[in-house]
């Protein structure tokens, strides 16, 4: 049982040429890099998303429709779907083509109509009529997919549509927000996995998934006997009973199917014995036995979806064996033999695992995983909604037929409610909740708002893979770096903290395949000499020299010469007959010619892949089957920004991956016409002096997020300890680190139905012509603030009035003022950048203000290089006081050298060297990952030589003068340009202080959080310190006087709280009904609240007072 020919339904990657062609001279290994740009040009960065969505629109949808084509009310009254298609996105009202940018600006969904061709009969079951292009709903369209208006457009056309040519697409625009459906990682379906479960038992499990049923079949071994576990049965069923129930009554045949080796027989013996001790010998007895174990409650929900539901006469067990047990193995005409053989294979692999523990499967092995893409996820949603829509249509038709007073013929097509699909899809994609009761699926966070913090952040979001496990699980296995991730998943790009190692990212060249048509491949297998399973006896399956051929988890048959077969399959693939990608241009030609091929993780086991042609070493050259196109492709998009990542300590690269997504820069070419809630832009973004090939490939050199700062690595002033940075004030004046924060504020002019709506009026003036309110200054003649105006906190944006009465028939209306104000930071001057006005679908008129704030770096703003070296601005120093070189070069910032020894970011040092050589020569140097052998990364030696030629020291150190004293510094200073990113965390957005302020109503304690002007909490641990120190009065002040002091009257007799009668000037106890023994004391209001809450739950807290 070798040679698993799992076809192309998996992640595949990796390139190489066939060994014969290797012998022919290839020009040089540098040439093969030329393939990479060609590859990305053909494929794009997010091809996996777009391909998957295209497959759903073109094929998946049809398959779902065909599976649910016929809907009958009675035998004669029916509704039949004939065809289904998706149109182009357009606006429902004016029939204008919808563009994504329009949707983003006006909060619409970028969607297209789904239309069907149907045939149906009238209420009497006669006159079948056909209708074409009946609209059944709207499908959100993925940007750049085949139905998108951007499909196939060139740069100018994209610019005309207001779209950025570098934007990868692959996301949806739902209600104006961009939503990505994350790639979901899953355990491979329809695959046998041998594992040990929580109780230490050996199990063989298969998660079956077909269009109709999803089930999990588990075989486990308990006390040497093997059982089947299935949700539909209350108890585990002995495996021999199952085999007998499927018609393999003879024990000998079972043993033969598992294998003739006596060791298998020995291990099976206890199971066989158990079966016979239960006195089960025939199929009928076995089925009866299983019927008794049937679990009705659990099954009834599933049975609704079993299409070929067998009649009850045959017994439930048989129908479960047909439809649920190993559901992906089809049972045709009651022929259970394929299922028997499959079960036997599962048994054999279990027994193999007992005999040889090496044969256990690794669940973390990438080859055992599958990636579920947006197309598949939307397809699940669509299937569910389509079915709901149809059942509702049938119900309504049924109801309408029951009405006696109906007039005229009934029109089935009128009972199709289009809102179900439209709203259902919109709701799921915009909330991210996939709640499908039909498939027992309840996933949250499937779709996310596309992060537009930086261009690279958006790209990184598109390649992210969300984990299959919950984050709470305390196992290290799934988090660890798997060797099989090589070239498929980026080893660097994973978050820190709870999702560490679970959330992953695709590598640069990873391709995720969609389904391929199975039929032709199966017949190809047969014609390449696979012997059909149906013609084989149990004995023959495991005869010598016979190997089973699996196809997508199905056993096709056996083959006697597996290597010949596998080679033949590969040859066919290389000749471009199967598994080709829709092709044009160079890269695909190579694919067609079989010079380049995709390898999936499982096939990599049978390949020996070299990085470079000349990399021979101890391995015989003829054994090498493939050559990697470029080693830099094993990293992902985000990690590809790091220059010389292979010289850094590994976690530093991971830190940079997290920070690269927070760096400010240029977001897209259309960034200034976007209307995001919050957008951070860098004013003078630069392209890095030290680039990598990945940077050029993904377009980071066009949409950079940082600036080349001249950095001096030295100590200065003491304001640079703990990673703080000393900045040059003149550099800041010149625009270093200057950024724009664009914020959106939306004001809606409500509509109350009919012609009743809010009104917006010109600013009112008194008789002298002066404005009646001072904060109305920036309003225009239409009562809306004008672009270009400086806007301060509490300035009026819209002079709006709302009707007091929304009754439609009112002649004269009275309005009350409902103006909208700008909420911003006090003392900051911000400018209104743009004002958008439009009407939405509900006749409301939103007005969007985009407010611009230009910020220069200040103390405490966060910066980072590309090597996980973050730091805050510690002080800003005048240029006069900055050190300078003989050439007059003065650094932009000073970084403390203590940042280097423990972090071991050698890459940063090489970046400085390369950058310095780069500016002096006027060219860009490269630092691609592992690029030295192929010339994609400059060697330090070469850089040093370049520096020497320009009169610098080979080490990159410069002779500097002190800016304060004017004397030469004692040491040479390592100085040169390093690409610095400004991160989104800025002091202005975070700083917060409060003396008095708002309080929470319930507890009367200060509010929490900056946004509510909250207090700073003295928490438990701080309290502990004060207790330990003995500062009791300080605790008293912090916890009560500064928080929620409250005076209460306590009855010393009963210990309960009383009240103070203001008229009689006396306190009373309402329990004792007198005013004796009352005492006045102070306690926190929250404490009093607690007492009252306890009383409400029938717990009496009593206070016992003593003299203090």
């Amino acid at each position, binding site marked *: 049982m070798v040679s698993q020919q799992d076809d192309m339904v998996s992640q595949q990657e990796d390139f190489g040429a066939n060994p014969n062609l290797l012998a022919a001279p290839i020009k040089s290994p540098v040439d093969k890099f030329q393939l990479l740009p060609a590859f990305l040009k053909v494929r794009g960065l997010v091809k996996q998303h777009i391909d998957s969505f295209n497959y759903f629109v073109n094929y998946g949808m049809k398959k779902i429709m065909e599976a649910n084509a016929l809907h009958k009310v009675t035998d004669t009254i029916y509704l039949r779907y004939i065809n289904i298609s998706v149109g182009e996105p357009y606006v429902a009202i004016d029939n204008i083509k919808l563009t994504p940018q329009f949707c983003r600006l006006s909060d619409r969904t970028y969607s297209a109509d789904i239309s069907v061709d149907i045939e149906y009969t009238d209420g009497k079951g006669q006159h079948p009529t056909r209708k074409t292009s009946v609209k059944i709903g709207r499908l959100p369209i993925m940007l750049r997919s085949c139905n998108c208006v951007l499909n196939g457009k060139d740069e100018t056309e994209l610019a005309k549509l207001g779209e950025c040519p570098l934007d990868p697409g692959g996301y949806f625009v739902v209600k104006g927000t961009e939503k990505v459906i994350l790639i979901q990682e899953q355990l491979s379906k329809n695959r046998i996995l041998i594992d040990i479960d929580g109780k230490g038992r050996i199990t063989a499990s298969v998660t079956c998934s077909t269009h109709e049923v999803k089930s999990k079949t588990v075989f486990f071994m308990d006390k040497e006997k093997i059982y089947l576990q299935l949700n539909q049965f209350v108890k585990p069923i002995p495996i021999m009973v199952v085999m007998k129930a499927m018609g393999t009554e003879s024990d000998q045949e079972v043993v033969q199917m598992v294998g003739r080796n006596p060791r298998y027989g020995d291990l099976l013996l206890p199971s066989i014995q158990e079966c016979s001790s239960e006195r089960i010998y025939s199929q009928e007895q076995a089925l009866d036995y299983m019927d008794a174990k049937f679990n009705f409650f659990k099954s009834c929900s599933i049975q609704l979806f079993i299409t070929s539901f067998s009649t009850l006469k045959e017994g439930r067990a048989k129908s479960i064996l047909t439809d649920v047990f190993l559901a992906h193995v089809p049972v045709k005409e009651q022929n259970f033999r394929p299922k028997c053989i499959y079960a036997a294979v599962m048994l054999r692999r279990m027994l193999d695992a007992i005999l040889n523990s090496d044969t256990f499967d690794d669940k973390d092995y990438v080859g055992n995983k599958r990636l579920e893409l947006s197309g598949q996820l939307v397809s699940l949603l669509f299937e569910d909604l389509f079915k709901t829509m149809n059942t509702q249509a049938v119900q309504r038709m049924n109801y309408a037929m029951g009405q006696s007073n109906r007039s005229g013929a009934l029109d089935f097509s009128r009972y199709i409610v289009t809102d179900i699909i439209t709203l259902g899809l919109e709701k799921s994609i915009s909330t991210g909740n996939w709640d499908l009761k039909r498939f027992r699926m309840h996933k949250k966070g499937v779709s996310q708002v596309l992060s537009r913090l930086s261009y690279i952040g958006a790209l990184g979001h598109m390649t992210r893979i969300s984990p299959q496990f919950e984050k709470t699980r305390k196992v290290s296995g799934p988090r660890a770096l798997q060797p099989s991730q090589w070239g498929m998943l980026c080893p660097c790009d994973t978050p820190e903290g709870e999702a560490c190692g679970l959330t992953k990212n695709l590598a640069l060249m990873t391709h995720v395949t969609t389904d391929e048509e199975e039929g032709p491949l199966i017949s190809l297998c047969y014609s390449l000499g696979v012997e059909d399973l149906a013609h084989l006896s149990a004995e023959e399956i495991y005869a010598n020299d016979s190997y089973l051929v699996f196809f997508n988890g199905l056993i096709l048959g056996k083959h006697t010469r597996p290597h010949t077969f596998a080679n033949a399959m590969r040859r066919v693939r290389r000749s471009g007959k199967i598994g080709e990608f829709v092709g044009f241009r160079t890269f695909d030609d190579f694919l067609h010619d079989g010079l380049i091929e995709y390898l999936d993780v499982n096939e990599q086991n049978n390949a020996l892949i070299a990085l470079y042609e000349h990399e021979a070493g101890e391995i015989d050259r003829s054994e090498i089957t493939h050559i990697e196109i470029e080693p830099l492709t094993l990293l992902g998009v985000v990690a590809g920004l790091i220059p010389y990542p292979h010289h850094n300590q590994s976690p530093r690269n991971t830190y940079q991956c997290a920070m690269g997504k927070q760096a400010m820069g240029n977001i897209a070419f259309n960034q200034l016409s976007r209307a995001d809630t919050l957008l951070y832009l860098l004013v003078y973004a630069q392209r890095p002096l030290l680039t990598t090939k990945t940077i050029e490939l993904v377009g980071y050199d066009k949409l950079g997020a940082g600036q080349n700062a001249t950095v001096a690595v030295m100590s200065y002033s003491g304001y640079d300890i703990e990673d703080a940075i000393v900045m040059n004030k003149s550099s800041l004046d010149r625009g270093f680190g200057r950024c724009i924060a664009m914020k959106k504020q939306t004001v809606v002019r409500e509509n109350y139905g009919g012609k009743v709506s809010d009104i917006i009026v*010109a600013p009112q003036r008194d008789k002298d012509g002066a404005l009646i309110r001072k904060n109305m200054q920036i309003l225009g*003649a*239409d009562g809306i603030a004008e672009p270009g105006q400086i806007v301060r906190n509490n300035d009026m944006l819209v002079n709006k009035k709302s009707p007091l009465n929304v009754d439609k028939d009112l002649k004269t209306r009275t309005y009350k003022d409902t103006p909208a104000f700008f909420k911003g930071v006090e003392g900051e001057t911000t*400018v209104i950048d743009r004002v958008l*006005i439009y009407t939405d679908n509900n006749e409301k008129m939103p007005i969007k203000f985009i407010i611009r704030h230009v910020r220069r770096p200040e103390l405490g703003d966060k910066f980072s290089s590309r090597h996980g070296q973050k730091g805050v601005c510690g002080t800003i120093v005048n240029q006069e006081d900055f050190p300078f070189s003989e050439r007059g070069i003065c650094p932009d910032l000073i970084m403390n050298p203590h940042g280097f020894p423990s972090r071991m970011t050698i890459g940063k040092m090489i970046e400085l060297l390369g950058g310095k050589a780069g500016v002096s020569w006027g060219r860009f140097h490269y630092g691609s990952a592992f690029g030295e052998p192929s010339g994609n990364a400059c060697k330090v030696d070469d850089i040093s030589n370049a520096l020497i030629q320009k009169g610098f020291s080979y080490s990159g150190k410069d002779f500097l003068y002190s800016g304060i004293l004017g004397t030469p510094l004692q040491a040479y200073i390592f100085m040169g340009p390093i690409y610095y990113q400004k991160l989104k965390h800025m002091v202005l957005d975070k700083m917060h202080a409060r003396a008095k302020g708002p309080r929470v109503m319930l507890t009367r304690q200060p509010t929490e959080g900056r946004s509510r002007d909250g207090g700073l909490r003295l928490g438990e641990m701080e309290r502990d310190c004060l207790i330990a120190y003995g500062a009791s009065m300080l605790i008293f002040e912090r916890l009560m006087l500064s928080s929620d002091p409250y005076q209460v009257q306590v009855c010393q007799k009963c210990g309960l709280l009383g009240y103070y009668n203001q008229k009689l000037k006396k306190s009373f106890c309402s329990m004792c009904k007198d005013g004796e023994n009352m005492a006045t004391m102070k306690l926190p209001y929250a404490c009093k609240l607690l007492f009252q809450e306890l009383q409400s739950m029938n717990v009496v807290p009593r206070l016992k007072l003593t003299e203090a």
Partner: protein
Amino acid sequence: MDPQQPEPVVYLCGDCGAECPLKSGDVIQCRDCGYRILYKKRTRRIVQYEAR
């Protein structure tokens, strides 16, 4: 000040850039190309910005 007789305010079309005078209560739509997002024109008042 009569709110019933407001002077038309000129807006700019988000697609073709044409000027589009609107009174309150008018449909928000460009008269030339039919685009439904309009931008407000930049203020004509003198604004003094602080250059830092």
